[in-house]
């Protein structure tokens, strides 16, 4: 059984540490092992150039640019209010318009359900089969683990 913690990069490093020395900069596990071995041998581990590492997604992410956020929000709200004013609409009209689109979806759903009820048994069974296939496919796709951090 293959150990999932040892990937190809680690394997290559273990086979030829000198040729694959760059692997140490990306793999914390191998770096710790190399440091441990170096400590046992009384040698200094190779220094890591932090600036040479790629920028991590979380670096600087907690910074909150309130000026940009407030400026952007004010500009968007001002444009929306100006357009509403030019079109002679109130925010209530916008809410009504959104509700109208929801009403359209509801009508579509009602029509589909009525058609399904009026359909023959064969069609209803076919619909049930499609429903099961699509949901089985959804479950299959959901089983894949996310890979964003490891990409």
């Amino acid at each position, binding site marked *: 059984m293959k150990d999932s913690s040892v990937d190809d990069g680690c394997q290559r490093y273990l086979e030829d540490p000198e040729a694959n020395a760059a692997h140490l900069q990306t793999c914390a596990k191998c770096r710790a092992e190399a440091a441990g071995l170096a400590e046992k041998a009384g040698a200094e581990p190779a220094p890591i150039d932090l600036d040479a590492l790629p920028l991590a997604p*979380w670096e*600087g992410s907690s910074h909150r*640019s309130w000026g940009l956020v407030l400026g952007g929000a004010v500009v968007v709200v001002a444009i*929306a209010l100006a*357009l509403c004013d030019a079109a002679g609409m109130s925010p209530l009209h916008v809410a009504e*318009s959104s509700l109208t689109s929801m009403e359209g979806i509801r009508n579509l759903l009602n029509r589909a*359900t009525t058609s399904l009820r009026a359909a023959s048994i064969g069609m209803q069974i076919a619909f049930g089969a499609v429903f099961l296939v699509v949901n089985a496919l*959804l479950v299959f796709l959901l089983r894949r683990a996310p*890979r964003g951090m490891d990409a």
Partner: protein
Amino acid sequence: MRRMLRLFLPLTIAAASLVTAMIAAPPDPGTHAPLTVGDATALLQKTAVIAALLAVWMLAAVALTLMSGREIRYSSLEMRASALHCFALGLVAVTSFALTAIVFSYLIPYYVGVPLLFALGVFAILTKIYGTVAVFHAVGTLVAGSRTREQLARRHWLRGDLAMVVVGVAVLGALRLIPIVGPIIWGFASVFGIGTALATKFGRREPWFLAWRASLS
């Protein structure tokens, strides 16, 4: 299985593109009549509604990023790392939502359909909102994200999750205002967002289903 998936994904994208083009195509391409005052007013009203909804999206995106910035960032990262998977998952999820809604609507006379339909609606809306904000973050990072540490250090305003989300809303919002093309882009963004939200379990990066493992000891 992987070969089947490779075949399935291009077919799914081709089918989705065809359906989207059919839905988005103008109903009568032969008419080129000049714009009347009524048409211009309707267009202005439509633009006003879109701009107002963009303002709401901006506020929702900022609020959600303040509440759970890390989750939004994880989802955005996943979308950029495996875009095709997120898109395929989004397409299948939207189809599943629609079919499940029809089934639950079918069950309304048996009373159990109403709470199920309500729960599905709430889940779908939450997925759409979360996913769309993750798309804003991904687009903002692609357009204005820092590439190097020096670039990041030089910036004072254009850094951080909030700024990326605001830039994403601005870019996608501007694209949304383009007639015909805008709704298609927004629709694709919604599909991507729903897929990303489900693929990362709303940024929590936990498995949806527990895997059974036999005890070895």
